[in-house]
């Protein structure tokens, strides 16, 4: 049985539509749906290869220590062990990183966070590999810890990366600050003097984990040409390859990556995890090597959402006009840079929310510390800011005696507004309308646990089946929030995607093959590609080639960008293929009909060439014959520019995305237990390419925001900077009992700059969900709640 599972590339998926036509705008079923419900879809942890070995990683038990010695002899002596590697065994490059190459493949003489990889083992059974790793003797000498801004910038602070020479090093105020981005506009001091109401508060956001379900895993297979084939779950194949090749000492074309099934990502697969380790062991042993983290290791194996400390001051006039915002956002980036610089740029530029404010003074920084490295997670810097600025909006509204929704609407941005960065918002920004829509939705019934005359259904109460209350001391609250997220890579990054389209006749029927390197991580990009190909080429059957590095880069599956970018690339390449179809048609059949001379009047539909008047003048099968059209094209969004390092001014973002939430909660004020009863959302998506998937993204993002509001935090010990809860027993993500009904309103106001007018969807709902839930808890309890996640002890006692 097992022998027929090999590490060959995932099967191509051909989809023909059933009930729907499967074009743009239709709720089209996933092409991988059947494989996923039958258990046949091959995730990266399912791969198997004959003679395969298992890799395992030895990690540091300390957050900051010097390594005095490493002795691998006892590990190597264990039967079944094929290789043990440490820093000294690395064949070429020793560091990697997304932007700054500051992360060691294996620690050399110093570990900087709890769980940092120190050595790797390959053995013939995973348990043998684990036991061998336990036999590696490492002598550590603990070093003083950097755990927050004060310890990072103290006069005698140990430097995390002494002598750093990255491109941020020259402008940061301290070498333990990765990046600093101020934003200055208007005159805050003068505005403060005119303000009738000033609210200044501190906020804190805990460290959230992406908690994707499919663990970090992959299979590296050494190739006869001296290269390596890596089957991997990642978010961006090409950037993995570009980091791996120098570490392996191989040219890029000998490091070939193919995407395996990906069990969720949410930012956590942007950085390398086990990729280099598996490839190194495979090349060392000459055998295929599989590495699969378990959940415990996964908590150490990827970056998390930056925890943040935020100070905000808002000033407004009596009539409810915001005059100024001053804020300072301190993000803890942990031991290595990862994507901290870009997170800083986002946090700063989106720090005041979707509001018009003439006077702004913002500073955002990310620290180097001995805490776990932090980087990309859904929302990427905008989540932390949104929690604080929306809490402030409620606080200022309360000071003014205004309704919180009305106060937001008075200050809401709309198309034509100017961001604090000076960037003009040049496409729809229906912020007030989104708030109006969630507010207008009917409210869920009160005291739903009281069946008429029957017993109390505790399942509808805070505490649920724990049977902690029958409704005594349970109070309801309602809260609102709205947020703004950028779409695509910002600040001058050359952001592009590539698609290859092959159109040919198979069995008398035209079939389009779509080949991209886009990482399908669950979001449904593969479905979108089939829809776009059908729409642009007028075919029914679309085959998806496995994503790999044999085609150009698709960029990252992050920043809500793939439908825009790789969807845009597929559209662009299909347009080129269509132009070639029409050129060939004109060449062969031009004399038969005058419309061939006017290709702009022609479209492809149901395998035919059709005029704008609906007349069929040719068919694809006849035009193509047995000659395929095979074209690869790149697609770029409009260029952006970096933010000025002193003023933060600049056309930094491609597109903005907006979502509003209304949360209804019930709180047991005696036990401090919260039940979110309903979480309604309204979002502008520009154009819903696949409405079912769009709603699924909004549900999923809203739920992760709910998790941050009331449950999710990686707890790091203050004294040792050690992760205290690396398990799903102690790191809680929402279950189906924690997650409420989530009505969704979808707006489609086209952005004329984007393919089909679409707007990136995935992240915006993660922003406003958290502050809406916390606002509802504040409304229920009257407590200030300046920190997420909210815990029971924040809701009880004095």
């Amino acid at each position, binding site marked *: 049985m097992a022998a027929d599972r090999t590490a060959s590339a995932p099967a191509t998926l051909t*989809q023909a539509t059933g009930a729907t036509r499967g074009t743009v705008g239709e709720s089209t079923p996933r092409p991988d749906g059947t494989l996923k*419900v*039958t258990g046949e879809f091959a995730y990266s942890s*399912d791969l198997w290869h004959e003679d395969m070995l298992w890799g395992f990683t030895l990690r540091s038990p300390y957050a900051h220590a010097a390594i005095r010695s490493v002795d691998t002899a006892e590990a190597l002596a264990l039967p079944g062990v094929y290789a043990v590697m440490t820093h000294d065994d690395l064949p070429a490059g020793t560091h990697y990183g997304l932007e700054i190459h500051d992360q060691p493949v294996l620690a050399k003489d110093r570990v900087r966070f709890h769980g940092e990889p120190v050595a790797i083992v390959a053995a013939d059974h995973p348990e043998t590999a684990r036991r061998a790793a336990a036999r590696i003797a490492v002598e550590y000498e603990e070093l003083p810890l950097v755990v927050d801004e004060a310890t990072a910038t103290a006069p005698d602070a140990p430097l995390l990366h002494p002598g750093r020479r990255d491109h941020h090093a020259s402008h940061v105020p301290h070498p333990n600050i990765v990046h600093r981005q101020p934003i200055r506009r208007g005159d805050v001091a003068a505005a403060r003097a005119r303000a009738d109401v000033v609210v200044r508060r501190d906020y804190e956001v805990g460290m959230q984990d992406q908690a994707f379900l499919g663990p970090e895993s992959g299979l590296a297979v050494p190739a006869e040409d001296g290269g390596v084939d890596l089957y991997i779950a990642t978010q961006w194949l090409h950037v993995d390859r570009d980091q791996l090749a120098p570490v392996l000492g191989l040219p890029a074309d000998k490091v070939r990556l193919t995407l395996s099934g990906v069990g969720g990502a949410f930012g956590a697969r942007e950085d390398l995890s086990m990729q280099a380790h598996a490839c190194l062991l495979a090349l060392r042993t000459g055998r295929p090597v599989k590495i699969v983290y378990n959940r415990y290791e996964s908590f150490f194996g990827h970056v998390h959402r930056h925890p943040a400390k935020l100070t905000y001051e808002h000033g407004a006039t009596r009539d409810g006009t915001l005059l100024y915002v001053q804020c300072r956002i301190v993000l803890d980036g942990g031991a290595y840079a990862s994507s901290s610089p870009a997170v800083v740029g986002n946090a700063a530029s989106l720090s005041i929310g979707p509001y018009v404010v003439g006077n702004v003074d913002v500073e955002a920084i990310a620290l180097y510390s001995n805490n776990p490295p932090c980087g990309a997670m859904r929302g990427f810097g905008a989540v932390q800011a949104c929690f604080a600025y929306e809490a402030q909006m409620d606080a200022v509204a309360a000071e003014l005696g205004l309704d919180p929704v009305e106060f937001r609407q008075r200050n809401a941005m709309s198309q034509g507004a100017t961001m604090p960065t000076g960037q003009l918002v040049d496409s729809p920004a229906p912020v007030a309308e989104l708030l109006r829509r969630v507010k207008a939705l009917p409210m869920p019934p009160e005291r739903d646990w009281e069946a008429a005359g029957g017993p109390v259904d505790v399942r509808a109460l805070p505490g649920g089946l724990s049977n902690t209350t029958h409704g005594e001391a349970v109070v309801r609250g309602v809260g609102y929030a709205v947020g703004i997220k950028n779409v695509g890579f910002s600040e001058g990054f050359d952001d592009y995607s590539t698609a290859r389209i092959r159109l040919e006749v198979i069995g008398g029927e035209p079939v389009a093959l779509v080949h991209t390197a886009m990482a399908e991580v669950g979001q449904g990009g593969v479905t979108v590609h089939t829809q776009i190909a059908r729409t642009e080429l007028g075919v029914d059957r679309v085959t998806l080639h496995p994503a790999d590095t044999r085609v150009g880069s698709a960029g990252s599956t992050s920043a809500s960008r793939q439908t825009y970018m790789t969807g845009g690339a597929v559209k662009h390449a299909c347009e080129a293929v269509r132009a070639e179809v029409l050129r060939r048609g004109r060449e062969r059949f031009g004399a038969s009909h005058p419309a061939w001379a006017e290709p702009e009047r022609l479209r492809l539909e149901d395998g035919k060439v059709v005029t704008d008047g609906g007349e069929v003048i040719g068919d694809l099968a006849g035009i193509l014959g047995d000659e395929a059209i095979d074209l690869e094209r790149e697609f770029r969004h409009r260029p952006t520019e970096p933010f000025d390092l002193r003023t933060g001014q600049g056309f930094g973002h491609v597109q903005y995305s907006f979502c509003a939430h209304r949360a209804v909660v019930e709180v047991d004020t005696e036990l401090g237990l919260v039940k979110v009863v309903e979480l309604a959302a309204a979002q502008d998506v520009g154009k819903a390419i696949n409405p*079912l998937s769009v709603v*699924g993204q909004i*549900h999923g993002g809203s*739920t992760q925001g709910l998790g941050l509001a009331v449950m999710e935090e990686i707890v790091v010990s203050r004294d040792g900077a050690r992760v205290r809860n690396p398990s*799903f027993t102690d790191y809680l993500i929402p279950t189906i009992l924690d997650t409420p009904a*989530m009505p969704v309103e979808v707006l489609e106001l086209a952005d004329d700059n984007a393919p089909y007018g679409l707007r990136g969807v995935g992240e915006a709902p993660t922003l406003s969900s958290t502050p809406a839930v916390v606002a509802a808890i504040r409304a229920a309890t009257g407590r200030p709640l300046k920190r997420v996640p909210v815990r029971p002890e924040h809701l009880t006692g004095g």
Partner: protein
Amino acid sequence: MRVNMTVNGRPYEADDVWEGESLLYVLRERLGLPGSKNACEQGECGSCTVRLDGVPVCACLVAAGQAEGSEVVTVEGLADHARQRSGEAAGAVCPGEPEEGHPGTPGTTRHPEPTRPGQVAPLAPVQQAFIDAGAVQCGFCTPGLLVTADELLERNPDPSDADIREALSGNLCRCTGYEKILDAVRLAAARTGEAV
């Protein structure tokens, strides 16, 4: 050690099993049945849920040796399991109705119409409902949820929302926010109800 068990109606024998191996490891790595997923291996996420002599369990928490002589149903066998059940039910209700034939032999890997997987495949009602309702995103939680939901519908063909939430509360999903999963279970219940 050697472990014998029946998986999806077919007898299996696994040799050289180390005593510390879980049922999940033996299914995935020794029997070629990787459909049951390894999301936490701590008994918290439910992605490895299988039926062990009819009872839903986390396969990661069952020592392989404990499954000796047992009947196991995994996601790979769910369609056959549902078909047998509906055959029994149909047999009880309308004995004259012929059982629909199906191409797969129990326990073998099925490749339903490999070039057109979007088309008709012999799926359990709950599997088809997950596809139709949009309950599958990354899909890593899906096998465990399907086994759990199928067992719920076997016990309770017409569950309330609260019943569904209670039954699925041991299965974590990180992508969907569960709304579409609720839709899928409701849909499967409704379709099965109509079919009877």
